[in-house]
Every structure is written in structure tokens, then in C-alpha cells.
């Protein structure tokens, strides 16, 4: 969940210089309206530093999944990026009476890109590959990456040629969102190339197929003309790894690419002025400080509230980040159907913050240490953001020492929790894909390590009860209502110190048309085309 932020070598100095120099040389053009059309070559400058591997669980975090996994493969159930709702994928329908035994009716007439038929035996082959240790093509490297999604599965079988049944350990109404993460590869290709070499010859059922790989430089994809949801409109899709934000910005301006992920935020005004399309939209994400609630000062809710109220999150979003985020009141983002509408918001209020801190026994302020990652796309722009927070908290007497570590090390620290190497820290700046999966509430706030990632020392029996109820619920609407209540409890308990929700910033050339601005971290590229 937290691996999707790739480390990137950010050069904010260079980016600032860049943005200053570019001021005033823009030729403004208006963004054309997208109507009908097709064709063209879409060239994406992605934030990963290397091309992801192309097995069913690509590396380079969730960005590898966004641009490679989801383009080559399909899951049984699709988390539709356009609507953030469950849509039928390789299963045309599914049902479960008890939330324990799940039946998937597989889509008929679908073929893998090599002509292999999609049916229950190819589904079982793929599940064997990640779950059956005695299977000839069992592949632990991929199995390990998927354990979080498959750990509830006890058995699976083909009922008939087009029906798959999966049995779970216990009732789990969150299972459909786990299913969205399991992608299916052509058994023929895996048998032909073997597990290790398969990633160099990937074959899925997805909208695009691999045409050419230039190692570490570009991945050329061509549309799958027989794609079951309709062939993509593009003639060609090219992915380029460009880990530095300023590099992506320069490549876009010099027309080497026509789609740039996360440019430097300070360049947004110039980008708009030059007629490029700046695309943002809320999606499941929270940038927060994860507090250690097992020791002072964050064991006191008043201190947590004071901390949150002292940060002018609107100024951070509008001025510091130029609109690339929205202020956060809690871990769940406002557009979600799981958003707790009635939960208390902790608005910016310095006087109240000071009073709360005094009431908690810190009239002369308090000094805390917070660990943070140095970079990463899902981590947004941690350095300027932490400096901003530092200045704001100083006003009420909370003096923060931010200690910067690289992303991999932050993951290790997070795993170990506040009893490990982070014992001297009071918090950790971390971004979570809250709400991407139905199970996120349980994983982040109910289950402790190693089953989950509640490292805060947070415990609320009422929440535990709600989550148990939601998990066993057989009615999706009822389940979501319970989950929303649960997110509300987390928000009013301030189990995370919320800062902002990222808006998935990307910039497109005016020629790129037809994009439906995604409502999730992922993106549907089948509707996109590039005009001449």
C-alpha cells in the first residue's frame, strides 16, 4: 500500500531556477475541447527511475501497476479509475451468499493476447502460481507481493469451464477489493518462457501489448485491437522513466513527451499560462503525521488536536503547493462514499490550539521529533511541506525536529513501529492510500503488526466492533455505511494528524484528448487519443 511512492532525486533548486527563467516566455493557447477522434502516440514521462518489471505484480510501486500492470492485464473485478467503483472485469459477475464462498462467472469470448482462451482453468493456473507451493510454476517472488491480497484464501476450484469458486477463511465482505489487485497472465506464455523469463515476454488480456523494450529508456506498447472492453484509441503508448520532476517538466516543454506525471509544483502557474492541461482530482490519499500515541505528548488527544489546528492546511494547499492538494480533516478524502460527513473537522485556529496545549500541561510548549522520507511521488513534496509545518507549529510552541531518511529506510522504520529504531521519535510523516481498498480501515487502524500497520498504539473497541460487523456484512451499502462510521471514529480520535490530500497532479500537452480525469490512483488510457 505504501510502496507506490518511488524515490526520486528531486532538485528543487534547479526546478525553481527553471520556473523563474521560463516566466514570461509563454505563448498562451487555450485547451481544446475533447470530442471525437483516435490515433496518435501518447508519450508518458513517469516518475519511476526504471521501467517496471512486467510480471503480474510490477515493481516500482503502484505507479508500475498503473502504467504497466493495468495496461497489460485485467483482474476479475476492476476498480474503475473513472468512477472508483467495482466493475466487472474478467468475471462478468460474481456473488457470495455468506461472504465466505465467492463464485465468479467468467467472461466468455475473452482471449489472451497470444490467443490462449480465458477460462476457469487459466484462472486456476494463475492462482496456483501464487498460492500452491507444490505447483510446477509456483513463483514465490510474485506470491510474496500478493500475500496481503490472498492471505484469506483457503481454497479455489473450477466449478465448470467458466465458473471459479474461491473459499475464504472467514466472512470477508472486503474481498472484492482484494480481487481487483490480482491480475491474470497467459498460462501458455508462462509455460513457454518459465517464471523468471516470463516478465520479458508478458502476455495478458489487457488493453495494450508490449511492442518493444529499450532497457531503462522506454517501453513501447501497442493497442490490443481485440480488447474486450473495446480497442484503445491510441496508435501507440510509450512510457519513459524520468525520476526527476524538473526533467519531466523540461521534456514536456520541449515536446519530447506529451504527458508528464507530477511536475514541480512551483511550475504550475507557468504550465497553465503556456496552455498545457493541468489535471488534478481527489483520489484515495492522505499525507499525514502518524503519531506515537503510546507516549507523551501525543498520547493526549488535546495535543493532537492542537497540532492539527496549528497548521494552516488551506494555505499549504493553495499557496505552497499551488493547488496540488486539498486540506485534510481526517484520513478519508471528502469525495469518497466512505467519507464521514458528520465527523468533527479541526479547523485552523491558533488561539484554540494554544489553549489546548496549555490545558494538556504544556504551557511553555513542547519539543518533538518526527521522521520523514526525503522524496517519493505519493509522498508529495516532503521537504517544503515539513518546513511549512515546522514554522506553523512553532507559533504555538511545538518545536519539531524533522529527521530525513530515504524512503526505503522509512518503510523499514514504519514496519518496526515506535518500539524499534524509531523509539526516540514522536511521529513519522507518511502518506497512505487510504480508501483504495475496503480493508484499509482494518489494516491501518485495527490490526497491529505484523497483520496490519496500526503502529500508533491506537485502540478503540467501538471501531474494532464496527469493522468486524462491516467485514461480515452481506449488504454492500450497509457495509459502506459502517465503514464510513469507522472512518469517522478515526477522524474524531485524531489517530492520524491529517495534513493534506494529494490531487494526483499531472500535466498534458493540449493535443492529448479524451482523458477521463481519474478518481483513483490508476488511469484508464483506452479513451485517450493524441491529435495531430
Amino acid at each position: 500500500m505504501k510502496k507506490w511512492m518511488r524515490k526520486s532525486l528531486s532538485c528543487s533548486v534547479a526546478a525553481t531556477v527553471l520556473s523563474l527563467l521560463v516566466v514570461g516566455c509563454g505563448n498562451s493557447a487555450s485547451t481544446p475541447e475533447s470530442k471525437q477522434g483516435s490515433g496518435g502516440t501518447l508519450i508518458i514521462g513517469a516518475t519511476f527511475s526504471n521501467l517496471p518489471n512486467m510480471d503480474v505484480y510490477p515493481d516500482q510501486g503502484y505507479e508500475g501497476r498503473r502504467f504497466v500492470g493495468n495496461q497489460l492485464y485485467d483482474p476479475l473485478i476492476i476498480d474503475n479509475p473513472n468512477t472508483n467503483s467495482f466493475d466487472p472485469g474478467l468475471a462478468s459477475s460474481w456473488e457470495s451468499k455468506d461472504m465466505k464462498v465467492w463464485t465468479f462467472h467468467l467472461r466468455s469470448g475473452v482471449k489472451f493476447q497470444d490467443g490462449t482462451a480465458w477460462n476457469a482453468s487459466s484462472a486456476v493456473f494463475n492462482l496456483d502460481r501464487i498460492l500452491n507451493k507444490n505447483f510446477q510454476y509456483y513463483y514465490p517472488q510474485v506470491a510474496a507481493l500478493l500475500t496481503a491480497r490472498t492471505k484469506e484464501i483457503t481454497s479455489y476450484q473450477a466449478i465448470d469451464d467458466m465458473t471459479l469458486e474461491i473459499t475464504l477463511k472467514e466472512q470477508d465482505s472486503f474481498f472484492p477489493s482484494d480481487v481487483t489487485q490480482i491480475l491474470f497472465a497467459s498460462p501458455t506464455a508462462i509455460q513457454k518462457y518459465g517464471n523468471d523469463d516470463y516478465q520479458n515476454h508478458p502476455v495478458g488480456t489487457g488493453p495494450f501489448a508490449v511492442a518493444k523494450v529499450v532497457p531503462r529508456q522506454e517501453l513501447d506498447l501497442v493497442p490490443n485491437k481485440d480488447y474486450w472492453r473495446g480497442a484503445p484509441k491510441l496508435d501507440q503508448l510509450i512510457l519513459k522513466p524520468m525520476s526527476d520532476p524538473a526533467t519531466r517538466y523540461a521534456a514536456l516543454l520541449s515536446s519530447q513527451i506529451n504527458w508528464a506525471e507530477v511536475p514541480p509544483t512551483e511550475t504550475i502557474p507557468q504550465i497553465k499560462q503556456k496552455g498545457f492541461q493541468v489535471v488534478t482530482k481527489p483520489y484515495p490519499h492522505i499525507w499525514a503525521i502518524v503519531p506515537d500515541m503510546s507516549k507523551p505528548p501525543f498520547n493526549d488527544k488535546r495535543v493532537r488536536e492542537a497540532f492539527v489546528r496549528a497548521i494552516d492546511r488551506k494555505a499549504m494547499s493553495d499557496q505552497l503547493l499551488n493547488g496540488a492538494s486539498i486540506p485534510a480533516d481526517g484520513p478519508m478524502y471528502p469525495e469518497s462514499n466512505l467519507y464521514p460527513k458528520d465527523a468533527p473537522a479541526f479547523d485552523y485556529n491558533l488561539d484554540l490550539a494554544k489553549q489546548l496545549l496549555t490545558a494538556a500541561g504544556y504551557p511553555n510548549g513542547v519539543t518533538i521529533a518526527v521522521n520523514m522520507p526525503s522524496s517519493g511521488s505519493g509522498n508529495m513534496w516532503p521537504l517544503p511541506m515539513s518546513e511549512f509545518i515546522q514554522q506553523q507549529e512553532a507559533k504555538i510552541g511545538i518545536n519539531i525536529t524533522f529527521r530525513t531518511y530515504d524512503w526505503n529506510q522509512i518503510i523499514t522504520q514504519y514496519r518496526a513501529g515506535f518500539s524499534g529504531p524509531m523509539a526516540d521519535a514522536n511521529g513519522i510523516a507518511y502518506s497512505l492510500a487510504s480508501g483504495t481498498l475496503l480493508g484499509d480501515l482494518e489494516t491501518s487502524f485495527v490490526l497491529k503488526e505484523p497483520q496490519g500497520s496500526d503502529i500508533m498504539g491506537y485502540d478503540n473497541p467501538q471501531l474494532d466492533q464496527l469493522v468486524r460487523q462491516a467485514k461480515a456484512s452481506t449488504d454492500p451499502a450497509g457495509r459502506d455505511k459502517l465503514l464510513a462510521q469507522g472512518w469517522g471514529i478515526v477522524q474524531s480520535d485524531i489517530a492520524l494528524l491529517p495534513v493534506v490530500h494529494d490531487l494526483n497532479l499531472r500535466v498534458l500537452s493540449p493535443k492529448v484528448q479524451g482523458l477521463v480525469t481519474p478518481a483513483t490512483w490508476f488511469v484508464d488510457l483506452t479513451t485517450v487519443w493524441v491529435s495531430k
Partner: protein
Amino acid sequence: MTRLFHRFLQAIPTLFGITLVAFALVHIMPGSPIDALVPPDASADVRAQVIHIYGLDKPLPVQYVLWLTHAVRGDFGMSIGMRVPVNQLLAQAIQNTLILGVAAAFFSFVTGTVLGVLAGLNQGKWIDRMVSTLGLAGVSIPAYWLAMVMVILFSIQLGWLPSSGMHSQGQEGNVLDLLAHVVIPAIALGFTPVGVISRMVRTSLLQVVKQDFVLALRAKGLMRRQILWHLLRNAALPVLTVTGLELGYLLGGSILVETIFAWPGLGGLLNSAIGLRDIPVIQAGILLIGTLFVLMNIVVDFVNSAVDPRIQRT
């Protein structure tokens, strides 16, 4: 020949030291490759399984000996992150780094020498002061800053040169296309050595000019051009040493420039490998860069003794 042989023998303990450092560094470094591979909520037995696959459950000395015995046979294992042979990754990366490094070295050596000679022959005049300023700028301006400014000017504003990458779409074999892509990164990367080399040439030249043999050559009535040739040969020694070291810097120290230009070389490979804690790639990369440095020093020694036979006798 015996000297060459001895020099190589001397290099063996150094290389051995490099293998120790390369191995130790990645294990001292906090963070584990397993965390980059296995999600935090994966079960303990799956985690143990993956650790076992990569041999990370063996004691460190055993891991080292295993790695070393494979390394001397040229086998660096599989990349943990990318699941391809490390050799294959390094071969591609070093090739790309050499293209950039040699281009940058060519630029810095030629420009640095010309500027240094001009400055040395015109000591105290405006041209000398200009070269000194440029040299100071060279060693002070960070390569990534210069890179961005050149990209803005030549790629974005003028549109003459591409801003990143090695090739345009579908132009993988086109040498001219490659040259167009290498110009800006090579200049950005080579600008620091220009500063170092031009100052070294100037200083060295000024020292040689003061020596008696120059007066003797003048007294013999040699032409200015002929005297210059003698001057340069004598001034070349320290310059060659520095150039050798700078070449090492250009090959190993281009992480920033490679990242900015999305240049698929050794620096970028190491950078992403460090992020992933991809131990086999980091170890092999450090060893490769270290070996290049050692070889470069040996080459410089021999070039030096070829230029100045006196060195051979010492």
C-alpha cells in the same frame, strides 16, 4: 613489461579492498531489500521464503565468500529488484555511461587544454583573467544547475537539442541523433573538469616557462611554435594525472547528471538500486567503478612514463 606486471600485482590488494568495502557498505546501510519486495503486511513465512531465495539468511562471511567466488568468475548474480542478471544491467549501463563520459572527457580535455594554454601564454592579460574566472565558475557551478539552464536555453527556448534521454522515438541506431542527445549532458558533466584542467594546464605551463631549458631553447633560436611543443610536453605530466582522475570522476560521479537527463547509465542504475536496496546491483556497481578507477590510475602511470622517460627509472 615487468613494471606493468608489478603494477597489476599491486592493484590486486586494492581491488580486494574494494570488494570488502563494496560488500560491507550495503550491509552497514540501513534498510533491507526485502522491505522493497515484500509488503509490510505479508506473513512471516512468506518473508522468510523470499529471504531464503536470495540467500540473505546465510551468515555475512558466507555471503561474502559466495559473492566473491562468483564475482571473480564474472558472475554477479540476479538483480533482486529487476530479476535480470546483474551482468546484463551493468553491461548496458556502463556502455551508456562510457558514451557520456568519453564525450564529456573529450569536451573537458580539449576545452580545458586550449583555455589553459591561452591563459598560460598570456599571463596577467585579460584573456588570462577571463579563463581564470571561467575556471572558477567551472569548479563552483553545480553540474545540475548548469544542466537545467542549458536545457531551458537550448531545448525549451531555442528547440535545438533534446532535453533528455539517449534517443528520439525510433532512432535507436542513429548516431547523429545520439550525438544531439549527448551534447548538453556532456557539457554539463564536463564543465567542472574544464575548470580543473584549464587551471592545471596554466599553472603547469607557468612553472615550466621559468625553467632554464626554455631560455636555452630560445638561445638556440627555436621558433615560438617549436618552443611551445617542448613547453607542452614538459607541462603535460601533472595535467595527465589530473585528467585521469577526472575521467574516473566522469565515469563514476555522474549520478546527478544522469538522473536529470534520464540517461540510462551506471549512476542512474546505482541510484535506483540504492533506493531498492538491490544488493547485488549495488555491490557489482561499486566494484565496477572502483576497478575502473584503479585501471585508470595504471593507464595514467603508463602514459606518464611514456611522455617522460625519467619516471621509468625511478
